[in-house]
């Protein structure tokens, strides 16, 4: 059974914990989602800015190409002048590796290169427009692309530029996220144009393509802009993408998940710590408050327990000024009254006992004394009669025996005789008692016999004289409770563990409502006596490790049985 204090503590803490746990779970989920969303949004903003920077660079290159075309158009420049203009652009601007001017037949008119040009115009470029070739690997195995600008006013001329894509590497290298996040620029086929990762230049120089990237599938271009995936290096990676306007390229930002969401995890951890500490605090406060609140109940329980154990002097001390104090005061008042009642009862009991003892003594002693007194008067007259003298002697001896037993009982009650235990033959004991009491049974007109098992020796460890006293007392009670013509017998039996001495009679029996009280001091069913015999007998039997029980049927008889542990030691010789 769970004590009420513990239940109250559980109730209080649970009532406080549940909202906290719910709050923690909801906050955990909300913080996780919102911070992750925030990280992805920031990455998207960053990749958009990066893509815009690439766009600006490319558009700047296109504008410079247009400016070069404008410098060369309509001015009637000689070829050497055109070459100087083109070489000027190449020397001064890092954007171009080479520039070349072509006619409508695709023939080179002028080139910035001192050697043969590797450029070729894209002839389907619309007048005034420009086209950009797909990225390809050049003879140096590095990515390159060419832009063709077709003159608007004179569509028969094409100005072609090879972009120095390595310049884009600087832009891409400048895009960093955290310590490990980097940017990758890829064309529409997934070929890496620029890579800001460690070892990224190797990938560019190898002409690698990101073919299996979740954001670069044909169906995904322009649709998905973020993904969590397992990268080739085995790390879980957050990737966001943005398209570069003006060219069919995409810019990716990649960052290991553990780093990208580090702030989110930190927040979650902080929240978890906060909730855990709050829960712990709640539990401690709940336990403390519950104990404080319920301490008076505990004190009251202890007080009640003490009262139950008879310690009526115990009191509870409730210092709080609330209902518990009233309850404590009421309890203490009740205990005070109980104490007073107990004292009164003890006094009454003592007075009653003295009365009973006095009455018993008067009763037990007055009859023999009266008998002795009467016979003493007669002896003066009949002292010559030898038969009377013999009867007188026998009567005086008997009555003094009665008086002596009364005193022995009282002395035994006040100061029990120490027991000395030795193996005792139960059957012999029964026969001995029957032999000693046979005269009294005969005088009373009763049959008294011992019934013992034949050929069996049953020993018990006990004080022989105490056992004789117990059995004699039980037999005497039976003789006194049985009408003449009745029967009293002492029976012995036993088993491997026990030895039992039965005293049975066919007397008047004991009413059931008095049966349990007959072993108490000063309780008797007889007209005469202090009522100490059975109480002393029971006590004596129990001191020898046995038990004394009684069953009785009114009008049919009574059966006392004293049961002892069977002795395993042989009896002492002599």
């Amino acid at each position: 059974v769970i004590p009420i204090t513990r239940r109250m503590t559980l109730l209080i803490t649970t009532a406080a914990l549940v909202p906290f746990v719910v709050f923690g779970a909801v906050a955990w989920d909300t913080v996780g989602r919102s911070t992750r969303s925030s990280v992805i949004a920031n990455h998207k903003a960053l990749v958009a800015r990066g893509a815009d920077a690439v766009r600006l660079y490319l558009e700047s290159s296109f504008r410079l190409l247009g400016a070069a075309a404008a410098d060369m158009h309509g001015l009637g420049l000689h070829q050497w002048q055109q070459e100087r203009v083109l070489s000027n652009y190449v020397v001064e601007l890092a954007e171009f590796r080479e520039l070349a001017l072509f006619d409508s037949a695709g023939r080179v008119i002028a080139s910035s290169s001192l050697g043969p040009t590797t450029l070729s115009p894209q002839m389907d470029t619309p007048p005034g427009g420009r086209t950009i070739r797909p990225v390809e690997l050049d003879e140096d195995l590095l990515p390159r692309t060419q832009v063709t600008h077709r003159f608007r006013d004179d569509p028969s001329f094409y100005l072609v530029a090879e972009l120095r894509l390595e310049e884009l590497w600087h832009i891409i290298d400048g895009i960093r996220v955290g310590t490990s996040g980097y940017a990758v620029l890829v064309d529409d086929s997934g070929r890496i144009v620029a890579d800001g990762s460690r070892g990224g230049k190797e990938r560019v120089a190898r002409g690698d393509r990101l073919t299996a990237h979740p954001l670069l599938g044909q169906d995904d271009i322009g649709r998905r802009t973020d993904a969590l995936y397992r990268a080739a290096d085995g790390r879980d990676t957050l990737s966001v993408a943005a398209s570069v306007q003006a060219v069919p390229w995409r810019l990716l930002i990649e960052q290991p998940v553990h780093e990208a969401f580090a702030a989110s995890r930190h927040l979650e951890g902080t929240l978890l710590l906060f909730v855990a500490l709050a829960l712990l605090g709640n539990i401690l406060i709940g336990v403390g408050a519950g104990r404080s609140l319920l301490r008076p109940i505990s004190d009251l329980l202890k007080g009640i327990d003490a009262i139950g154990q008879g310690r009526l002097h115990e009191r509870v001390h409730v210092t709080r000024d609330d209902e518990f104090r009233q309850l404590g005061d009421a309890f203490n008042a009740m205990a005070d009254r109980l104490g007073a009642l107990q004292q009164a009862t003890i006094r009454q009991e003592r007075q009653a006992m003295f009365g009973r003892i006095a009455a018993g003594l008067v009763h037990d002693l007055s009859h023999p004394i009266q008998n002795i007194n009467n016979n003493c008067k007669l002896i003066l007259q009949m002292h010559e009669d030898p038969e009377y003298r013999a009867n007188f002697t026998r009567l005086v001896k008997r009555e003094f025996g009665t008086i002596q037993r009364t005193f022995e009982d009282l002395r035994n009650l006040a100061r029990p005789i120490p027991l000395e235990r030795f193996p005792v033959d139960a059957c012999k004991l029964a026969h001995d008692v029957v032999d000693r009491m046979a005269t009294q049974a005969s005088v009373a007109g009763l049959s008294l016999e011992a019934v013992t098992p034949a050929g069996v020796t049953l020993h018990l460890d006990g004080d022989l004289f105490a056992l004789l006293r117990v059995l004699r007392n039980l037999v005497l009670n039976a003789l006194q409770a049985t009408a003449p013509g009745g029967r009293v017998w002492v029976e012995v039996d036993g088993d491997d563990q026990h030895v039992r001495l039965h005293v049975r009679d066919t007397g008047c029996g004991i009413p059931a409502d008095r049966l349990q009280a007959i072993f108490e001091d000063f309780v008797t069913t007889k007209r005469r006596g202090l009522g100490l015999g059975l109480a002393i007998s029971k006590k004596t039997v129990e001191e020898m490790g046995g038990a004394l029980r009684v069953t009785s049927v009114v009008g049919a008889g009574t059966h006392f049985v004293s049961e002892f542990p069977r002795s395993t030691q042989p009896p002492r010789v002599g």
Partner: protein
Amino acid sequence: VVAVVWLLTLAGGCDTPRQDAGAPGGVPLTIGLSGRGVALEPIVQPLIREKLVTTGPDGRPAPGLIAEWSTSADGLTWDLVVRADAQWHDGTPVTAGDVAHLLQAQIDRGETPAGLWDVDRVEPLDARTLRLQLRAPSSLLLEALTLSRGLAVGPFVDGQEPDGDADTPVLLLNPRHATASAVTRITFRHYDSPRAAWAALLRNDIDFLYEVSDEARSFLERAPGIHVSSFIRPYVLTLGLNNRHPVLRHTSVRRALNYAVNRQALLEKDYGGRGLVATGHAWPFHWAADTSVTPYPFDPAEARRLLDAAGLPTVVRQDGPPSRFRVTCLVPVQFERVARRLQHAYAEVGVDLHLELMAQEDIEARLASGTFEAFLQPVLSGYDRTILYQLWSGQSRGRFVDFGYTAAAGAAERMRRARSDEDVRDTFRAMQRVHFDDPPAVFLIWAHTARAVGPRFEVPDENDRDILSSVTQWRPAASAALEAR
């Protein structure tokens, strides 16, 4: 490059390297070269051979195979002592006779460095000592020994198969070499362009990029595991001028061409500021150099004034821009951008620099034949004075490019005959002054030369020194570190 090839050729002795084996297995090293015409001799020879005398960046000689030297009071007798532990590749001790044979063979060929021109007799005195008897004292004798190819006692041996490609030699570690080198085999790979070469390094196709172009340097420096180191080589980027040209023969014209160039801008734009603006052909870090000499300032107005004063008016031409005169400049592909910049600079003062892109080997042939007007490429100066003397002394002997310039001949000769450090200092500075007052060419930049080592190797920190010189100390990168890269 031309000078080095020339010098190595003329200094090449008849000594036959005695070798018996190369170490099999080990860690191979592949060196990438930016261009088909890159000379391998300057790379290969220091790995195979050891010089008789070495020289540091300050131009002072230091012991090499020759451990000690002494000279007589009249400077005509030199005794050289061979290092005691010097051994050929097969373990045979190097003797004074071996060194004497090497020098005598070079002298007999007649194309020795200037320091040996005065040697009359070479004779071994004992197993380790040889004596050089000179007809006249020469302050360039020890420098000549630094320019000698040396003997084949270096850490590597030539492992080329008889039918192998001469352009891709194979070097094997000499198993008897005292240094426990992790690199046991060296091969070479040529690329058409610097860009292709550094892309190959990024792909780990090669382990070592001999020359890193400026455009690639920033990428390579950021690439994980790639170690870039640089140093100033004794080569000055030069717009060489043929002083026999009817216009270029005038001092004022050459001075005008020097004023017309913004060297600092060139250094900033094309070399990322890594290098030193040149004041002349003399090695600026030589112990005897006058460091107060300043480069020609960028002064186009002064250039125009000088050209006007030289009677060179601007005239309109049908086949080119209006100009005072036209000069054809031979340009190797890697210097096209610099050449374009010079072209624009000279156009500003009315000089038409006509650029002619040409392969390196073709340029060398043109320079050797003297059929050029101008050229643009680095010119060797060396850490000491021999090249300075040979180029500008006016003597055809030992001159790998004939500029047709004689103004410094007297100063050069005095420098050769200097007898004391004071004399060396005075004559060296006299050469600097002559070159400033009457410049034979337009000396532009002492550019940093960058080398790059790929992630497969861990190398010592060798900035301001050629990292290849420590190749025997390179170690394979730990696999974990390599993986991380």
